[in-house]
């Protein structure tokens, strides 16, 4: 089988015996892949300490070696994102996003827009040009949109009336329905959150259009809080389980 080369972001690394590592990457060209890095734990020469979480690497691996486990042959570091690992809060956010990607994506399915989104938020996180919270909102809303689980923020999920025809400033969001509901359709109170109209508008802006423009949108601090509570309930609900990094994040935030 031929060697395959692609840019990739490291998602997870697990010890395999005394010498090897089994590593999951989000690659640009093949989506999520699992590779084995032989002697990576022992030999400094082979991968020389560059196989670290969140790093952007250029990989060369051999495909077709058994199902889904490729043999890593070369790796070179493109972007180490040193400022992320030097900061516990940044590390916690990056870990949360990584877990979402790792849990959601299927192996071997090319997902270029998720790759670029992930690299973009990691770069922004490393540079410190945007607050971590705002980046996490940007990542989550766009990730869900690309994955086809965009929250419905414009029409009642039951009767279809428009948000502008709904009463009050607080709009009910039903997790199970994946969208807002009007007062008339609100039934039993489970899995529901409230979002203010202002927050809904900002979420819609941040979730669409050019990402560089979107990241410049300044949220008010109540809107940040409301958006995080909302997304950190909405995303795990659709993932089917709560990422471990999320409880870590809550502890240190």
């Amino acid at each position, binding site marked *: 089988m031929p060697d395959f080369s692609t840019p990739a972001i490291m998602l997870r690394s697990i010890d395999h015996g005394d010498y090897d590592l089994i590593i999951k990457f989000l690659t640009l060209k093949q989506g999520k892949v699992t590779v084995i890095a032989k002697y990576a734990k022992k030999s400094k020469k082979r991968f020389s300490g560059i196989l670290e979480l969140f790093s952007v690497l250029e990989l060369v691996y051999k495909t077709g070696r058994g199902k889904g486990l490729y043999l890593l042959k070369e790796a070179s570091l493109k972007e180490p994102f040193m400022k992320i*690992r030097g900061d516990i809060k940044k590390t916690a956010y990056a870990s949360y996003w990584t877990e979402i990607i790792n849990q959601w994506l299927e192996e071997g399915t090319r997902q270029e827009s998720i790759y670029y989104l992930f690299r973009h938020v990691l770069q922004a996180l490393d540079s410190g040009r945007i607050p971590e919270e705002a980046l996490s909102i940007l990542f989550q809303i766009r990730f869900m949109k690309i994955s086809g689980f965009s929250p419905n923020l414009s029409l009642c999920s039951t009767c279809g009336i428009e948000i502008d025809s709904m009463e009050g400033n607080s709009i009910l969001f039903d997790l199970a329905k994946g969208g807002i509901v009007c007062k008339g359709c609100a039934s039993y109170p489970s899995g529901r959150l409230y979002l203010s109209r202002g927050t809904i508008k900002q979420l819609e802006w941040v979730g669409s259009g050019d990402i560089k423009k979107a990241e410049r949108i300044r949220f008010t601090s109540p809107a940040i809080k409301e958006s995080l509570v909302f997304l950190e309930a909405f995303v795990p609900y659709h993932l089917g389980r709560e990422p471990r990094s999320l409880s870590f994040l809550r502890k240190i935030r």
Partner: protein
Amino acid sequence: MNHYPASILNLIKNFGRLPGIGEKTAERLAMHILRARRVEAEQLAQSIMDLKQNTRLCSKCFALSDKELCKICESPARNQSLLCVVEKPADMAAIEQSGAFTGVYHILQGALSPMDGIGPEDIKIRELIKRVENGNIDEIVIATSTTVEGEATASYISKELERFQLRITRIASGVPVGGDLKYVDQVTLKRAMETRHVI
């Protein structure tokens, strides 16, 4: 293999579970024990039992010890106001072997790892802060690893210790002696350059 009696097969199986030991080596070790004098075999068995029974963590630094306090914490020759924070007992052993450090240690028993759900209360950070609160410590050397988890742990600890009047240092991680520069990653090289010193 099946021609061996169960008692030998059992030992081979148990040796085979040890790290780095394959079936062939396990078989050789078992044969060695079989041929050895009875007292030798008993000593080996006893030392394994002792290890499991008597080894605990030093109540002060969490190093492996067979008493309440480890040898280093007890030693009057060690500088008790200089504290080196490491992740694992093996890291402490490595620093001890270098002979470069004359202070005492604090072994965290792990590193923070959001994805593994390992938070500040899961490793010995609270105990570290307590040691600092109790006074007598002038400098903390953070010697956690340079992995993402190790760096994040170092960042967390230094933030938590900000409020104390302390000198907090991070060990310089540089180019290995005799190391070929082309094998050193960019992160290490950058850091080595930043922490360069006059010779």
